[in-house]
């Protein structure tokens, strides 16, 4: 999981890094399966591997200028990279130190019994408002994305790729 994610962030070939990221998402789903959260795992695969990856690949292909789409690393960018690496490394150190230092109460031995029915009831009853809001967000996002990607082409058709 970590390896493919790191490789994805390092690779020059955009398609390769997108595919590796998908692998990383899939392994997150595998982690969910291991933790007993089947529903979340399948949802993760369906949404990430099935949908988001497709959108990402589409975006990559539509905005591709040459075979290696990422630009050449310049001095300014190199400085940025080192800064980013430092920040990342520092944060990783702090977080892992915190995790290692903290003491949690004893873990539950078995996974909480969660059936799809239970999830559905919880979603509908206790989190009904949140579900509605999510629905609205998704609809707005869908319409917004379509508008963003489409109107621009109409306004200046000679710019369209």
């Amino acid at each position: 999981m970590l390896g493919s994610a790191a490789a994805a962030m390092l690779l020059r070939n955009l398609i390769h890094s997108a595919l590796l990221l998908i692998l990383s998402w899939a392994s997150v789903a595998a982690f969910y399966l291991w933790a007993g959260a089947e529903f979340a795992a399948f949802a993760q695969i369906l949404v990430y591997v099935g949908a988001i990856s497709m959108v990402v690949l589409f975006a990559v292909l539509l905005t591709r200028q040459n075979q290696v789409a990422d630009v050449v690393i310049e001095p300014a960018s190199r400085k940025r990279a080192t800064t980013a690496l430092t920040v990342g490394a520092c944060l990783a150190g702090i977080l892992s130190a915190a995790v290692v230092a903290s003491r949690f109460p004893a873990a539950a031995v078995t996974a909480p019994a969660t059936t799809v029915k239970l999830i559905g009831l919880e979603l509908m009853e206790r989190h009904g408002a949140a579900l509605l809001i999510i629905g609205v967000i998704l609809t707005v996002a869908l319409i917004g994305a379509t508008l963003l990607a489409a109107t621009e082409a109409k306004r200046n058709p000679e710019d369209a790729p």
Partner: protein
Amino acid sequence: MTPLHLCLLISSGLFCIGLTGALARSNTILVLLGIELMLNAANLNFIAFWRFGPAPSPANGMIFVLFAIAVAAAEAAVGLALIIAVYRHQKNIRLQEANTLRG
């Protein structure tokens, strides 16, 4: 070292990789993907606490994750639409070049 510790370590690793990627890369798509990775790391934490946490509730962690996944999907869709719009505008998706609003 309990399983919870391990899960948290993994998720913090994933988060930092995502953060580093988002900061270091100049390709907008990759920046967006780095943010997705960070979201995933947060989801990992939810599941880890739900499964190995001190007082597991029946479905709360899972429902959080489902909502986060839905939001991430919306975010990716809008983000990538934005990227395509920007690309159409200036034939480039480098983050540094989208600076027409700079004072």
